[in-house]
């Protein structure tokens, strides 16, 4: 069983890789379509901006590859945001796997942007309540809650901290930086098939 961590050009793939390593799973950091397609699990990390990550995926001809994946896929932070149709960050058309848009936190209020630090995540499904915990966030953009939201957090408004549709799971926080809570959440992902 191999985990493919998609190299979307951003930095900090190392932390994601290390967190997989801690769970004793083998991984490959790759931008090769074949390696991604044959992996048992795929992680789409993302640091930087939606615009950069999307243009990198296009350049590497990975958009269709990702859209056609049938195995469990986890998008982290911007990797989650690009699962949606559109991001206001750089006016970017995204993968469109999940309906909805990504918008910016409202700076006109006294909200500090970016959101930076540990926020409480609450799952709505009773079976997932055991994952309710504090997770680490660092984001200026967010998805409002919608049909596929499975967990929410509050920053000014209630926003989507976990989203799930078919084989695509996305988290706005960084599980690889969220201590034991994050590790536990990654195990939840790896239980999927």
């Amino acid at each position, binding site marked *: 069983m191999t985990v493919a961590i998609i190299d979307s050009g*951003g*930095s*900090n*793939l*190392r*932390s994601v890789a*290390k*967190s997989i390593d*801690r769970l004793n799973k083998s991984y490959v950091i790759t931008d090769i379509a074949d390696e991604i397609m044959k992996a048992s699990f795929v992680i789409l990390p993302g*640091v*930087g*901006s939606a615009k950069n990550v999307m243009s990198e995926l296009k350049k590497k001809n990975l958009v269709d590859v990702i859209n056609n994946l049938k195995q469990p896929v986890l998008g982290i932070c911007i990797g989650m945001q690009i699962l949606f149709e559109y991001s206001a960050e750089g006016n970017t058309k995204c993968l469109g796997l999940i309906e909805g848009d990504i918008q910016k936190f409202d*700076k006109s209020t*006294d*909200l*500090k*942007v*970016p*959101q*930076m*630090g*540990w*926020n*409480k995540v609450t799952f709505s499904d009773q079976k997932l309540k055991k994952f309710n915990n*504090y997770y*680490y*966030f*660092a*984001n*200026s953009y967010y998805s409002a809650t919608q049909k596929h939201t499975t967990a929410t957090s*509050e*920053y000014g408004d209630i926003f989507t901290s976990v989203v799930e549709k078919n084989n695509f799971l996305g988290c706005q926080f*960084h599980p*690889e*930086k*969220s*201590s034991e809570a*994050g*590790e536990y959440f990654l195990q939840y992902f790896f239980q999927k098939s």
Partner: protein
Amino acid sequence: MITRRVIPCLDVRDGKVVKGVQFKNHKIVGSIVDLARKYSTEGADELVFYDISASTVGATVKKEWVSKISDVINIPFCVAGGIKSIDDARSILNLGADKISINTPALENPKLINQLSNEFGSQCVVIGMDIKTVDNKDYLFAKTGNETTAHSTGINAMEWIKEVQDLGAGEVVINSMNKDGMRNGYDIKLLKKLSSVCNLPMIASGGAGCKEDFINVFKGTNVDGALAASIFHSGEYSISQIKSSLVEKKINIRI
């Protein structure tokens, strides 16, 4: 809502963690990896590593220890000291750091803030500010890692904070030089003044000496985090002791 953060700061020189008083007379307090692991296990919300050798002699921070840190902890950490270019920043972020903090290079070349923010996202870009208050005016100091190079830039802190926000910074660390190492409380007056013009997450630094200082800075200002070094290095308080006393006072803290 987001919790307030307790952040141990580790000053690094020649691969060891050191601590001085008011930026001088540094003594070795331990190994980087051991302390990183200890604080992370005790419940630190993030860690800051400040390479004081790098910033004064013009070298980029040596990178090996950054990757060792990301191997042993799974909480966010920030690296500061001697980062002067996009390439410096990229290499540190690629080794697993979540943020880079720049101080003197930002003062010398403010456009760097904008370049870093465009390249890596504002959430990676922290601006450290060493501020000394003289006659009720707050000035930015540069090259503060060494007492022979530290000097006032004459730049006013209120103006600088507005500028770094416009340039795309993601967080500011306000270090009061008047308070640093004195262990008699954070500079509440300075923090209140600066937070009135700041829409970025703000971290208080300089002056923590007892648990009440953390309570006072979180009750008395809207800072997002409190950074401290000697109070933790000395072993007087563990991170978890500080955090429980904050929770008792109904401050929103991750435990």
